[in-house]
């Protein structure tokens, strides 16, 4: 029941915020924050009660939802280590995003905070759903709050960005719907429940012809690749990030992008193992192009938010790379990298939001020398920058290292190219840091106040997580280990079967 409770609480919290009487904005904010914190507390209980030794889904719930004729759709939830940590990330980031936009959002406050909670409900649903239709349900529903967050509270070109975001995602996901329906009827499945369909595929009771499998894989892949976003489907991302309000950018970068990578792991690999193996070289190539391209484009961005947006393209390239090398190290690294990216990029967007509240500009050229003016802020920014680059001791290093290890084990050449991405990321992040925080201070920028108590409250938890995840990654990797190994070993088994002569045991 705990998963349903999480979803329901988020939803009811959103309704409650809407019902706060009159224009009492302070109460609306407090209400929303209280709801988010309560949900976070509950998800910690989830973390503590999760048994890391079990490969099967845990906390399962199943109810009949739509049953008639040949259609069997269930309300079925359950999580493994991968979804557990992503849910935890979601409930961790949402209250921080709320706190981070405490003073930035001045109009339609109630609606803003209730949309954040609705969004959280949808996202938790996506990470917990174990029925294909239920998954699609949550996947689409959460588009609407995000669309409004960008379109109503965004900056100048918000409408363009919101519509682009919606249409891109929708186009991909509708194809996925067609694929879900086709898969169901083509495979002769008797239920839309994911574990049953996967079992059918693993035990060879369901056999998809190669071309059909390739088609279905492509539909799912496209939906997820747009969300990740994988090069060349990334063009909506910079627009959406730049135009969204701070909380929107944070939630988008930290949480929503992870849904795409999660989709690869949960759906593409187990449902279509043969097609995944067949297309892996192509996808790895795209991921590597994304890593390098994102980094190169980030280097020349004059706008801070755009720079971070392109750095996301680069970082998410690592995630996809880790997934499609099909070994435990890669999958674990990809997962860890998702969490890292969620924490450090979320922190970067929050920091840029705080800066914007003071300077009203995001242009790097208008800044400079801020380290003298707001030293505490600069310190936080520095740590986050280093975490994002992947400095050992901070969280980013663990994920990238695991991904690179995994891909070296699979094949060294792509890994070598991908590794240069880490160098590039150091270049654009440090160069940005230098231009913003060192050098001469502009006259107009001298009078900024340093961090307020509320801003400390936002940044300190993130900083703690960066160090914790960098220093003692075991507390999270432990929960991931079995789940990641299962995904990797399942697909390795298929690979061995498809081409035994080409298969080399990698460890």
């Amino acid at each position, binding site marked *: 029941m705990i998963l349903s409770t999480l979803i329901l609480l988020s939803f009811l919290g959103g309704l409650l915020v809407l019902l706060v009487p009159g224009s009492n904005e302070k109460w609306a904010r407090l209400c929303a924050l209280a709801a988010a914190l309560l949900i976070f507390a509950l998800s910690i209980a989830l973390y503590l009660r999760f048994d890391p030794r079990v490969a099967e889904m845990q906390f399962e719930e199943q109810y009949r*939802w*739509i*049953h*008639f*004729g*040949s*259609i069997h759709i269930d309300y079925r939830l359950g999580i493994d280590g991968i979804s557990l940590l992503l849910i935890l990330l979601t409930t961790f980031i949402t209250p921080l995003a709320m706190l981070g936009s405490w003073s930035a959002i001045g109009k*339609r406050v109630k609606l803003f905070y209730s949309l954040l909670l609705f969004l959280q409900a949808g996202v938790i649903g996506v990470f917990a759903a174990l029925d294909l*239709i239920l998954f*699609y*349900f*949550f996947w*689409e*529903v959460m*588009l*609407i709050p995000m669309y*409004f967050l960008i*379109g*109503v509270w965004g900056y100048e070109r*918000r*409408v363009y960005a*919101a*519509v682009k975001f*919606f*249409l891109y995602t*929708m*186009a991909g996901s*509708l*194809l996925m*719907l*067609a694929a879900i*329906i*086709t898969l*169901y*009827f*083509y495979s002769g499945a008797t239920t839309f429940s994911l574990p049953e369909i996967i079992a059918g595929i693993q035990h060879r009771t369901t056999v998809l012809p190669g071309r059909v499998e390739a088609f279905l894989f492509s539909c799912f892949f496209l939906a997820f690749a747009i969300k990740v976003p994988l090069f060349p489907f990334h063009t909506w991302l910079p627009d959406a990030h730049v135009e969204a309000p701070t909380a929107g950018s944070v939630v988008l970068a930290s949480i929503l992008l992870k849904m795409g990578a999660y989709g690869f792991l949960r759906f593409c690999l187990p449902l279509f193992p043969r097609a995944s193996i067949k297309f892996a070289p192509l996808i790895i190539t795209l991921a590597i192009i994304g890593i390098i391209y994102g980094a190169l484009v980030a280097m020349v961005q004059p706008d801070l938010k755009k720079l971070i947006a392109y750095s996301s393209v680069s970082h998410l390239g690592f995630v996809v790379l880790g997934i499609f090398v099909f070994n435990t190290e890669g999958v674990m690294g990809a997962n860890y990298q998702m969490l890292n990216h969620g924490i450090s990029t979320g922190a970067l967007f929050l920091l840029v939001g705080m800066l914007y509240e003071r300077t009203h500009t995001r242009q790097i050229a208008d800044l400079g020398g801020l380290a003298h003016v707001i030293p505490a802020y600069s310190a936080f920014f520095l740590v986050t920058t280093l975490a994002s680059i992947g400095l050992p001791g901070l969280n980013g290093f663990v994920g990238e290292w695991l991904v690179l290890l995994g891909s070296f084990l699979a094949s060294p050449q792509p890994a070598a190219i991908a590794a240069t991405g880490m160098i590039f990321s150091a270049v654009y992040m440090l160069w940005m840091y230098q231009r913003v925080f060192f050098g001469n201070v502009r006259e107009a920028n001298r009078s900024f106040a340093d961090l307020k108590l509320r801003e400390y409250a936002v940044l300190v938890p993130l900083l703690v997580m960066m160090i914790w995840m960098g220093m003692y990654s075991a507390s999270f990797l432990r929960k991931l280990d079995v789940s990641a190994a299962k995904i990797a070993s399942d697909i390795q088994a298929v690979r061995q079967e498809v081409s035994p002569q080409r298969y080399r045991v990698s460890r």
Partner: protein
Amino acid sequence: MSEFRYLLPETILSVVGAVIMLLCPFLDHKNSRIPGMLSGLALLAAVVAVVTGWHQNAAAFGGMVIIDFFSNLARLLIFTILFFISVSSINFLQREQINFGEFYALLLFVTVGSSLMVLSGDLILTFLGIEVLSIGSYILAGFKRDDFRCTEASMKYFLLGAFSTAFLLYGIALLYGKIGSTRYVDLAGNLNATPDALTLAGLALILVGFGFKVAMAPFHVWTPDVYEGALTPITAFLSVGSKAAAFLAFVRVFYVALRDLAHAWSYILWLAAVLTMFLGNITALRQDNIKRMLAYSSIAHAGYILVGFVATSHFGVAAVLFYILSYALMNLGAFTVVQLISGEGENRVSIQDYIGLGWRQKGLAVALSLSLFSLAGIPATAGFMGKLFLFSAAAERGLYRLVVLAVVNSAIAVYYYLRIVVLMYMREPSSTEVSIGISFPEAAVIGFSVLGTLILGFFPGLFMRWAEIATTSIVR
């Protein structure tokens, strides 16, 4: 005589319609609301009459009239839709100063026509039902005589409609020439699965007749002009009530009477479905008049429903029934909001008039957004479940290509529905504040439709159970 009890609802409606006609000359300004109230009550009584005979099963009048679960469900649906349209018209007609009782009398007559279509067991009665429905609709479409858009709409509808019914009648005549009967029971089982030219011609002509009524491409060209010109409640009726009735009759004629020809007509309808979806959706992209936009959207939705038709399966029919209900709910919601926003003289029907509505008329904007999201097929709404069932029905029969084409269309459609939402919430409101008076009946209709859309979006099983029984009662 006892057979008339099966037609009790139709009798009530006809009698009250005639009474309203007779009453009209004696009414003055003070009691001008009486016809509207009367028609509402009559429709309510008809609903009650249907519900009391809910499990009746009979072939009355020598097989002319078939009363089964399908008939009752279809009648319930039609009467409820018409009830909503009739009560939400009362204030509208007063606002437009055309509050004549004849409006309601005609509304009741077209209801009777619709209902005869769906319970008919004979092509002749089907034709009569369509004629009663059509002739009433022609007059209603041009009800505001001094408005040239309205008159144009009526004229176009009449000219094209007259042709289409002539086609239908010709088709019926050809089938009669082949079989020697127009009864569904005689036709079913006696037509050759590989039809000769005569049967094919009859089938094609009947298809034209129905295609016109449901706005199936390429017989859809009347729709945008008529929807734009007609009074909004009538547009709502044409797009919801008339279309629902036509589709329900379509189901019975094609799945019962012409079931032997399923191979032939499913092939034609495959093409028609694809054409209808693409034409509707692509043209809707560029419409700036909201009624016109909804007209093209309704064409596109006819295409989606045809996808379920093509499946020629039990599930397909149930999915079609479900979609008809969902479509009715979401369009009633949308049109009632449009009717309120349009203002006196219906001058505010451009999509630009919706700028900033989300912050000025919160309730209306939320209702319209939800209806539009449902039309776009976003989950948590009836529209999504409806599409899921239609597409699943097609996939179950291996029509994967059709499913992909339908899905591509759904993706195109998102853009133009979203455009309205963008205008309502994401552009700053203009300075001119226009007050909109919402009366209780209109609010109730909107509330009911939106609530229904959401409930069916979460629990489609509630209606799907009935749709299945209704399907079983006609398709064996």
